[in-house]
C-alpha cells in the first residue's frame, strides 16, 4: 500500500499531460467550429489554416483554444469527456432501466465478457491437458513444445478473419465461437508453460517419498504434482485472462461484427464518433482490471487455504 502515493502522483502527471495535449490536438477542429459560428479566426481561409502548424494556430487564436476542450467530435477528447461518455452509456442507462439496451456499453461488455470467459475456459483446459501430456510423455514433450512456442510467434490476427469465415462456412451461427477460439489460442500458451513448470516443480526427493508410500501414478499426480503447481497456475491464469480479452477484442475488430466492445471501437471509427471509441477502450481496460483482480483474489484465498502464502 506504500505505493499508493507514487501511483497517484504518476496518474495526476499523466492527466496533466493529457489535458495539455488536448489544446494542440484539437485547435484545428476548434477553429473550424468557431469559423462556422461566425467568429473571427486567423487565418480566415480553411486552406491557409491547413498549412500552418498547430502551435502557430494556437498563438494566433488564443481565444479559441478553450473551445477545443468541449468539441463534439474531438481528435483527442479530454478525460472528463471520456468519463462522461462512459457514464452516459453505462451507469445512466442502467439507472433508467435500460442496462441491456444495444446502445449500452454494459450490453457490449457482457458480449465481450462471455466470449472471453469461454475462450479462457477452453484455453485453460487445453493448456492444462497439454502440460500434463508434456510432463508425462517424452514424445509429446519433444514434438509439441517447439510448436507451442512457434504458435505464439505467429500473429493470430492474420488468422482471425479466416477463423471467422471458416466457422461460418462450417455452419456455426454468430461470432461467439470464432471469438472464443481466437482468445483460447492466445490464452493457452501461458497456462501451458506455467503448468509444465509447476508440474515439474516437485523435487526428486518428494517424488521418491511418494514412491516409498507405494503411491500410484494418479495419486502422485493428485497429491503432489497438482498442488505443487497451484502458484504457477494462478500466475499464468492472470496472464491468460488478459490475453483472452485481447483475443476476443481482436476477434471483434475485423469487419462485420455488431456487438462487443471491439465492435463498438470499429463502429465508432466508421461513424466518426471518437468519444464512442474512447469510451469502449476504457470499458475494455476496466473489464481487464476487474478480471485480473478477481483472479488475484482467488489466488490469495486458494493459496492461503492450502497453507502456501501468496
Amino acid at each position, binding site marked *: 500500500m506504500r505505493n499508493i502515493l*507514487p501511483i497517484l502522483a504518476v496518474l495526476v502527471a499523466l492527466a496533466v499531460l493529457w489535458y495539455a495535449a488536448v489544446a494542440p490536438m484539437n485547435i484545428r477542429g476548434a477553429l473550424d467550429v468557431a469559423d462556422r459560428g461566425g467568429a473571427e479566426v486567423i487565418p480566415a481561409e480553411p486552406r491557409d489554416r491547413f498549412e500552418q502548424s498547430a502551435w502557430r494556430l494556437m498563438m494566433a487564436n488564443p481565444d479559441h483554444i478553450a473551445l477545443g476542450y468541449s468539441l463534439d467530435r474531438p481528435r483527442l477528447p479530454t478525460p472528463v469527456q471520456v468519463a462522461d461518455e462512459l457514464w452516459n452509456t453505462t451507469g445512466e442507462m442502467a439507472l433508467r432501466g435500460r442496462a441491456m439496451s444495444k446502445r449500452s456499453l454494459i450490453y457490449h461488455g457482457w458480449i465481450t465478457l462471455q466470449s472471453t470467459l469461454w475462450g479462457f475456459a477452453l484455453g485453460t483446459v487445453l493448456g492444462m491437458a497439454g502440460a500434463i501430456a508434456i510432463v508425462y510423455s517424452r514424445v509429446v514433450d519433444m*514434438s509439441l513444445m517447439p*510448436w507451442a512456442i512457434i504458435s505464439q510467434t505467429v500473429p493470430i490476427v*492474420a488468422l482471425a478473419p*479466416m477463423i471467422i469465415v471458416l466457422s461460418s462456412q462450417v455452419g456455426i451461427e454468430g461470432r461467439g465461437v470464432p471469438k472464443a477460439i481466437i482468445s483460447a489460442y492466445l490464452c493457452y500458451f501461458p497456462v501451458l508453460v506455467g503448468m509444465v513448470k509447476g508440474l515439474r516443480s516437485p523435487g526428486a526427493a518428494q517424488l521418491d517419498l511418494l514412491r516409498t508410500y507405494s503411491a500410484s501414478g494418479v495419486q502422485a499426480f493428485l497429491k503432489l504434482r497438482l498442488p505443487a503447481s497451484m502458484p504457477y497456475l494462478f500466475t499464468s491464469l492472470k496472464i491468460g485472462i488478459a490475453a483472452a480479452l485481447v483475443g476476443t477484442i481482436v476477434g471483434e475488430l*475485423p469487419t462485420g461484427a455488431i456487438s462487443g466492445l471491439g465492435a463498438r471501437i470499429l463502429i465508432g471509427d466508421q461513424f466518426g464518433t471518437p468519444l464512442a471509441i474512447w469510451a469502449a477502450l476504457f470499458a475494455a481496460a476496466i473489464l481487464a482490471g476487474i478480471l485480473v483482480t478477481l483472479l488475484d483474489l482467488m489466488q490469495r484465498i486458494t493459496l492461503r487455504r492450502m497453507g502456501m502464502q501468496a
Partner: protein
Amino acid sequence: MSWLVFALVFWIGAWALNASLANSRWRGTIGVRVLIPVLFGVTLIVLWEGFVRGLGVSPVILPAPSTVAGTFAASTDILWEDFRQTVLKGALSGFVIGALAAFATAILIDRSTFLTRGLLPIGNFVAALPIIGIAPILVNWFGFDWQSKAAVVVVMVFFPILVNTVQGLRETDAMQRDLMRTYAAGYLDTLIKLRLPAALPFIFNGLKIATTLALIGAIVAEYFGSPTRGMGFRISTGVGSLSIDLVWAEIAVAAMAGTAFYGLVAWMERRVTFWHPSHRRN
C-alpha cells in the same frame, strides 16, 4: 478416400517413429531433437492435405497446403510488396522507435525511486490491456500509410519493454553496487558496466514479447485503413473476395516473419547474454 487413409496411416507411422526416436539412445542428439518436431509439423500438413482432398472440401472454404504453396510461388511479388509495407516499414520501424523510447524512459525514471514505484504498477497494468483497440484512433491521427501502423506498434511495444527494463535495472544487489562504489565508479560507470549488463536478460525478455505484439499491431492497424498494399489489407480484402488461397499464403508469410523476427531477437540474446546461467551448457 484413399487420400484420407493415406493421411491417417502417415500420421500413425510418424507418431510411432517419433515415439521410438524419443525413447531411443539418440534422443539427446541435436539431429533427433530437430527431427521430431519437424516430423510432427509435416504430419499436420499431410493430415490437412489428406482431409481436404479426401473429403473434397471446397477450396473457397479451406484450400489444401499444396494449393497454398502454388499460390505462394505464383504471387511472390505481391507477397514481397506486402511484407515490405507491413513488416519492414510498419512493424520494424515501430519496434525500433518503441524500444528506444521505452529504454530511454526506463533509464530516466530509474533515477527516482518514487517514479519507479509509481510507474511500475501502472506499466504492468497497461501492458495487460487490449491496447490494440487504439489502432483506429492512431490511423485517424497519422493517416493511412505506414506511419500510423508504426505508431500503433510503438504504443503496443512500449510498456512491456519499459516494465522489463525497469525491473532489470533493479536486479543488481547491494554487494555488487558497493563493489562499484569502492572502485569509485560514478553513476554512468555503474550503469554501463554493471546495471545494464545485469538488466539484459530482462530487456531481451521484453523485446521477445514485443516482437509478436509488433506484428499484431501492424496487421490490425491495416484493417482500419491502408494504402492498397500490406498484409492486413490483403487479408481483409482477400476474405471478402474469396481468394482464400492468397489469404493463406499471406498467413504463411506472417507466420514465417513472426518466427524469424522472434528467432533473430532470441539469437541476439544468446550472443549478448552468453554469460547468463540459463544459456550455459551443462
